[in-house]
């Protein structure tokens, strides 16, 4: 292990910075996000992820935000284990009837001010599960949604871009409360 740690000490970071278009976007996204998060929440926002019926595809890509390549924490975004610690609920769907109560309770347990982001084609619409007896559908049919990030599943870079858009919306709302 010592050799490995020593190597890591001298190796260049694997975290992507620039070059390919997506990577540039990520860098831009990160910087923009950081400035706005600072203004709103001091230095950070905390996200609670809720799977309300997803196939787990979206979860895999949300997970990827935490890896060393995207390293979302460097932008002040972190994931929490409890909704009581969260500013943002990141919800995937389609919301199943069997998950409705759990989603409503998770929303109720999240302190104000809070924002909800619906993730994925199923969370934003109903995806391929439209018309099933077991499915309610889009997240906004159960709780109010501030932002939709589409994709099946959305790439990690799309998720990051989406969170910036949320910060824009949140800033406006903080200045002009509804």
């Amino acid at each position, binding site marked *: 292990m010592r050799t490995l740690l020593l190597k890591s000490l001298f190796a260049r970071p694997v975290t992507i910075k620039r070059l390919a278009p997506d990577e540039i976007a990520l860098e831009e996204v990160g910087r923009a996000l950081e400035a706005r998060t600072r203004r709103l929440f001091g230095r950070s926002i905390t996200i609670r992820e809720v*799977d309300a019926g997803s*196939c787990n*595809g979206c979860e*895999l890509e949300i997970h*990827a935000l935490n890896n060393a390549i995207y390293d979302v924490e460097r932008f002040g975004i972190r994931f929490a284990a409890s909704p009581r610690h969260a500013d943002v609920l990141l919800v995937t769907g389609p919301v199943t009837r069997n998950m409705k109560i759990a989603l409503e309770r998770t929303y109720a347990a999240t302190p104000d001010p809070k924002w909800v982001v619906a993730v994925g084609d199923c969370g934003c619409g109903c*995806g391929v599960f439209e018309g099933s007896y077991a499915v309610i559908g889009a997240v906004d049919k159960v709780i109010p949604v501030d932002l939709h990030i589409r994709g099946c599943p959305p790439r990690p870079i799309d998720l990051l871009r989406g969170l910036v858009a949320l910060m824009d919306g949140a800033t406006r709302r903080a200045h002009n409360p509804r």
Partner: protein
Amino acid sequence: MQDVTIASLLSRFSPLAHHKPWPRYEVDAETWVRIGKALAAGEGDLLALWGEPKAVHMALRVASAKPCVISLAVAKRQFPSIGIHHLPAIRLERTIRDLYGLRPTGAQDERPWLDHGVWGVSAPLGPRTRTEPAVATGYAFRPVHGEGLHQIPVGPVHAGIIEPGHFRFTANGETVARLEERLGYVHKGAESLLSGAAIEKAGRIVARLSGDSTVALSFAFARAVEAALDIVVPTRAQVLRGVMAELERIANHFGDVGAICNDAAFALIHAHCGIFRESVLAATDQAFGHRLMMDVIVPGGVARDIEADGAGALIAMLDNVAPGFSEIVRLYDDTPSLQDRTCATGVVSRELVRKWAAGGHVGRASGRNFDSRRDLAYAPYDGVAFDVPVFEAGDVDARVWVRIREVEASMRMLRTWLAALPGGPLRTEMPTATDTHEGIAVVEAFRGDVLVWIRLAADGTVARCHVRDPSWFQWPLLEAAIENNIVADFPLCNKSFNCSYSGHDL
């Protein structure tokens, strides 16, 4: 495994002509029960048990005969329970009852399984669907008696970025006396959506039943349709399917090895495995235009070709990742504090994995030498030699090692295929259906064998489709694995299984 009883029982029946490639027999209730008892006696593996409005079916694997499907016509919405003889059938029968309203007679566990009381209908797929008020029903967890016991309810919303399900622990201090699972939270009514769907739409639904296994699910669906319609897939498409299936396997195994170590608070391996996984996904994106390779495998072949520089990008990725992975494997092997957590933790016995016919790393870590790529061989695996690692200890450590060795075997297979991709067409035209056709296929997903059974109607649409995720026969064993372990080791055990919630709940 002896199959004297099952083979002789079935010799009295002749298989239906339109079911392929395995024979399907329509049997009487007595034979149905005797086969159930033979399964309980260890004469075969129960691969699936599913319903439709007026029949129930079982897929079996027996040692010296072809695998087969047994069907029983259902009278008065009842069928004799297999679960009273062969325990792995219990949850499957509870599901048949929830979805179809068919009652397994003699069954002792009459609690619903997927139906939580809030669908607004009962028996949504059955012959008699009734509208019901949507009221969440309580669930009677099994009582646990004893001094000093307390319960810990966990879920359905979990602490991590994972799927929902409920775990009810009964603990004595730190030690788990019993775990009972309650699943069904992500039930999306897939079977109802598949009935009557066009093949293309059905394929898109099946690809989204468990996102981590989307390639394997599409692969199994495509092969079931191809079996039903006698379609021969072009060689290039076959090899590309194998490439995608192995890429999915290594990506998931990287993720799992990292996550298991992370649950033992060893973040270093997690960080490196996260990079490996991301490298695979970036390369698959470059080669196939989608990080998870969704909807690329379709009945008849593949929907798109690999990018011109795709094979090169994938080989470069393998060259890049392989040395780092060996180093991480060495680190895992050389770190006693980590192995202190994984060794002898969450042991599953050989008897249990055999009885449940548990596939994937769960079975192979407990001595069950089965891999559908080899034992129910299909293209392109019938043309390559590969290792099927089997371990005996049955603990978290053994499940880690199965994954490590499988990654190595998959990488070798990938290199062989990518070095010489065959040319030729990508897809065979679908013939026009004129009659009812049925097909079945099993594909080895990263977590075990996925089974898809399909009936195509004369108009070419899907009449019925049943998908059985490997998790059905792994979830129950997790309850056994955690017994007498400490509560704090549950995440470790759970991650070492990595069962699917969505694939199970369907």
